[in-house]
């Protein structure tokens, strides 16, 4: 049962990407896409799709929209702060690797969290071990684990927890 669901999800994701790549929903495109997605999903039947762990509740849909907005805001904000650092003649750095804790369990959620942390400049995921993430920061505000968790992880985790758990 779980495997069938997984297969269907992967198939749907691939078909979605196929239509996106082609940029059209003409009949022949869909037919070829169904065929190609089916074969690839068959080859990767042990694999999983981006939406495998997604919780299909209305709240999660709203939160994923909010998550994208929040992420874009963080991206621009932190890029500007990094730009200030790079442009200042003295290079006010205070680098270090801190340890943070995450509550996320699902693979996709953890991947998204690590990617979001890496993409916001100033923080970079170096290693993931169980519930501990090791983050390199350009400016370390506090080496304490709990304070760093609140500063780096909490913002993203709030949304991801609802979406992927």
């Amino acid at each position, binding site marked *: 049962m779980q495997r069938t669901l997984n297969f269907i999800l992967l198939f749907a994701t691939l078909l979605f990407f196929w239509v996106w790549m*082609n940029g059209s929903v*003409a009949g022949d495109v869909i037919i070829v896409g169904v065929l*190609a997605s089916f074969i690839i*999903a068959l080859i990767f039947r042990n694999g999983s799709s981006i939406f495998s762990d997604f919780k299909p509740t209305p709240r999660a849909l709203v939160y994923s929209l909010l998550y994208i907005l929040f992420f874009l805001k963080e991206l621009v904000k932190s890029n500007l702060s990094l730009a200030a650092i790079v442009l200042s003649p003295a290079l006010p750095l205070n680098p270090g690797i801190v340890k943070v804790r995450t509550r996320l369990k699902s693979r996709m959620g953890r991947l998204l969290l690590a990617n979001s942390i890496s993409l916001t400049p100033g923080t970079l995921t170096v290693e993931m071990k169980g519930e501990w993430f090791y983050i390199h920061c350009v400016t370390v505000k506090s080496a304490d684990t709990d304070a760093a968790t609140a500063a780096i992880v909490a913002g993203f985790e709030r949304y991801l927890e609802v979406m992927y758990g």
Partner: protein
Amino acid sequence: MTGKNMIKRLLALLLLASIGAMFASLLLAYVPDTDLNFTARYYAEHTAADIGAANIVTAIIVTYRGLDTLGEVTVLFLASGIVGLVLSFGRKQNTTLRNLVPVGELLTTASQYLAPIIMLLGVYVFVNGHLTPGGGFQGGAIIASGMLLLLLSDPLKRFSHTLIATVESFSGVGYIALGLVGLVLAGGFLDSRILPNGVLGELISAGAIPLIYSLIGLKVGAEFSSMLTSLSETEDL
């Protein structure tokens, strides 16, 4: 030793200088054409009506010069076969498996999600070979890159040889069979006009080109994959 090296280097430089002078004369005498030459003009004017492919390069590779492409695919097949053969000679029997640095969680997860999408991109590239840039060779290379991602996320992973060999032989046989059908039904070996040309710019058009290019794509992908696997299996048994 150093003196001998010196002489060798000097000779190499002399040789290169002469080749370089040749190249320089070629470059200085080169004037870009202002118009297409005879062959190119023929292709430009007749492809759309005769073959029905929007991508003229694809029309040349698959139909006008189809026999050359058959040769290329054969060369690639031989290369991958010889790589496998050379590496399987005198393989050591009892080497221990390497103890590698384990792969990080992020890469395993990401490759699991990305590999199907890379494969899908490969299929997109070779199915749309007659409309957009790309085609069988590029699509095959992209599919092999997807395999490569899987291999990187688990260096000791072993792919199914039978699957790769089956895909390779089926696509090869299908390619030849389509060529023979062209010989019977249309103008000659590997003629794509065994199916109707359709409307220029649609996905299913240009005769048998999407079909032939898909088979080439699968074959090239399987050949690259078998090269990768035979290289990655040099040390076990």
